[in-house]
């Protein structure tokens, strides 16, 4: 809420250390988790491999919803990494919140619009890249006039709204969740024991719900990413 941002300027770029550290942490957790789950894969899966295969199948299912055929195959890995990262990033702020002095160093990286916009930009730039690669630049531009030329401005506008809705939906959900967590924490400390016990209960309920929201938002983000990707790969 009132925390100052630990901002460092370096080479003309400004770095918010809270984002960077928690992003790195989320990356490390994802890498550690999947490496732990994928040791010695075999045709007869063990417990760990089963978990990983379930996750992979789940993400494959998301991709298949919008790209059922062979075409979606090259996005399986990307969708998997994206899903795991956003999921971990969403949950990170619920389990970990590190403040040093007034500065906040670890939180959900997805509660910052810069991060979600980076991810959305990555996805949408990839969709444009694959669109041009498949159709060639001319056809790619002509696709904006489909189904009729009248819709061209709306089609162009849609590219920006896609970007904004994709990033801000994720940001808004996670940011609101964290704000409410902090508010409930403040409430817990406001009247001693009288507010601590109901506050703790409320906090637990809200944390559980935030886990749910975080999972749903990761699912929604990957689903929409794949929808935008498939839109660029097919002609109406």
């Amino acid at each position, binding site marked *: 809420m009132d925390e100052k941002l630990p901002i460092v300027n370096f080479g003309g770029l400004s770095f918010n250390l809270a984002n960077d550290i928690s992003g790195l942490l989320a990356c490390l957790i994802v890498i550690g988790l999947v490496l732990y789950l*994928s040791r010695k894969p075999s*045709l007869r899966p063990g417990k760990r491999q089963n978990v990983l295969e379930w996750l992979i199948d789940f993400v494959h299912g998301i991709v298949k919803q919008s790209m059922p055929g062979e075409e979606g195959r090259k996005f399986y890995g990307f969708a998997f990494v994206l899903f795991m990262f956003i999921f971990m990033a969403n949950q990170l702020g619920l389990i970990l919140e590190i403040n040093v002095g007034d500065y906040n160093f670890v939180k959900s990286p997805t509660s910052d619009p810069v991060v979600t916009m980076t991810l959305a930009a990555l996805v949408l730039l990839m969709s444009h890249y694959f669109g041009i690669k498949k159709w060639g630049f001319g056809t790619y531009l002509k696709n904006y006039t489909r189904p009729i030329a009248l819709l061209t401005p709306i089609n162009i506008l849609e590219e920006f709204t896609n970007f904004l809705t994709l990033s801000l939906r994720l940001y808004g959900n996670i940011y609101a969740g964290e704000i409410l967590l902090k508010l409930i924490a403040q409430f817990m400390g406001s009247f001693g024991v009288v507010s601590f016990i109901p506050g703790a209960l409320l906090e637990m309920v809200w944390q559980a719900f935030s886990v749910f929201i975080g999972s749903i938002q990761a699912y929604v983000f990957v689903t929409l990413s794949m929808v935008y990707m498939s839109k660029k790969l097919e002609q109406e």
Partner: protein
Amino acid sequence: MDKLVFGAALQTGDMLIYLILFVIMFAIVIKFAYAPVAKIMAKREDKINGDLDYAEDTRKKADDLAAKRNSELKNTRAEATQIVQNAQKSGETQRDQIVSQAQSEAQQLKSNAQKDAEQARVDALASARDDVAQLSIQIASKLISKELNADDQKALIDSYIEGLGDTNGSR
């Protein structure tokens, strides 16, 4: 441009960091975890498909074999019936043959025996006739004490005995 939506600050460095982080994470996760497991999953899918195909194949083969065996069994049964019938038939003909042969043999034997008996009777009759003739002549020659020529009287005696034989033969 260092302000973004809702007055949140735009940290350009974060974008770069996140891009790099994502690419590194992508590379590591894909290379060391996702690719091997996905490969295993594809391999398992292939194996299951292959096994199912193999099972289907084997079942079809087993069905074919069963059908073939059934038809062969039917053939064999028919053949067995044929063989038994043939055996019966040939046994019957053989039996008929043996019986008829035996009958004809018996006929033969019987007729031979009859012929023999007839012969024996005729022989016995002839020899008896001779003996009677001889005896009659001897008796007669004793009675009349006169030498009778057997040859001269033979025709007479024979005519007697002929008469005797006729009354005897009718019996």
